[in-house]
């Protein structure tokens, strides 16, 4: 068995690491470093209001409404800019062609970490339950192993 001191040490280490990680997290919606060059002129594209520009100079995005077959133009937020320019851009940080995977595994990595931890806990719970319900019958008869 592990002593109580080691358990406390592991708990404090985990608390310290989590606190450090949350302290060091980057601001939401902030583009993460490298310049974005979408029209291939060699310099970073910035709109009139200082926001990053993706395809045209207006800082807006086209949303296609399939029901009425019309296109709505809407202001892009800083979050959209960060996701689109960071994920699918060759000069961005994430460099993933699949923006959904980029969001799941990079921008929202904490969600995936929690999901993996939940799966681990579920498997541990199932195995522990079956082991507790039927202890010490590894050599018992009844069916081949």
């Amino acid at each position, binding site marked *: 068995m592990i002593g109580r001191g080691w358990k406390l040490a592991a708990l404090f280490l985990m608390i310290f*690491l989590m606190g450090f*990680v949350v302290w*060091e*997290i*980057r601001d939401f919606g902030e583009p*993460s470093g490298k310049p974005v060059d*979408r*029209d*291939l002129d060699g310099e970073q594209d910035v709109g009139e209001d200082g926001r990053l520009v993706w*395809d*045209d100079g207006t800082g807006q995005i086209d949303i296609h409404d399939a029901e009425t077959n019309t296109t709505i133009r809407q202001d892009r937020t800083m979050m959209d800019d960060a996701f689109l320019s960071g994920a*699918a*851009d*060759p*000069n*961005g*940080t*994430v*460099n*993933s*062609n*699949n923006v*959904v*995977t*980029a969001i*799941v*595994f*990079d921008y929202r*990595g*904490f969600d*995936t*970490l929690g*999901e*993996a*931890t939940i*799966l*681990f806990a*579920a*498997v541990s719970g*199932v*195995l522990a339950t*079956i*082991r507790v319900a*039927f202890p010490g*019958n*590894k050599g*018992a008869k*009844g*069916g*081949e*192993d």
Partner: protein
Amino acid sequence: MEEMSPIVKTITKIAFAPIFLFGSYIILHGHLTPGGGFQGGAIIGTLMALYLIAFGAVKWRKKLLSIIESMGLLVFIGTAFLGLTSGYFFFNFIGGTGFPLFGEKLQTGELIDGVFFPSNNAPLLSSGTIAVMNISVGLEVIAGLTLIIVAMGLFAFTGKEGGE
């Protein structure tokens, strides 16, 4: 748990390799196409359930499966922590840097009549830590779901744990 008929066993032997290949494809191409670690791992877990039903209680190496599951989670967390070397937790420190494994850049698009069209032609070894995390989560899900299936199935049929 008894075996099933030779028809089921033969069909399982035939279908094992294609289903395994499909699950591996879903995992390994997770950063290019829909899918990812969890989806491909669930497909291979279903394959393991089929194998268990068809062939009964063969020796399942539960120790090895437990180790694979723990290693998957540890590699995931470790990759997330290695991002701290470049500044942030979960930072993609390989993507686009030219590193030989998963470090290739995406191709730039082209300008047609003043409108930029991004390229949809991405190399397989791109996207940095996302591919590493996909593979580690896939291994973890494969091992975890196989452990649940083996534990519940063998327990339900024989009343005891199966395998090592």
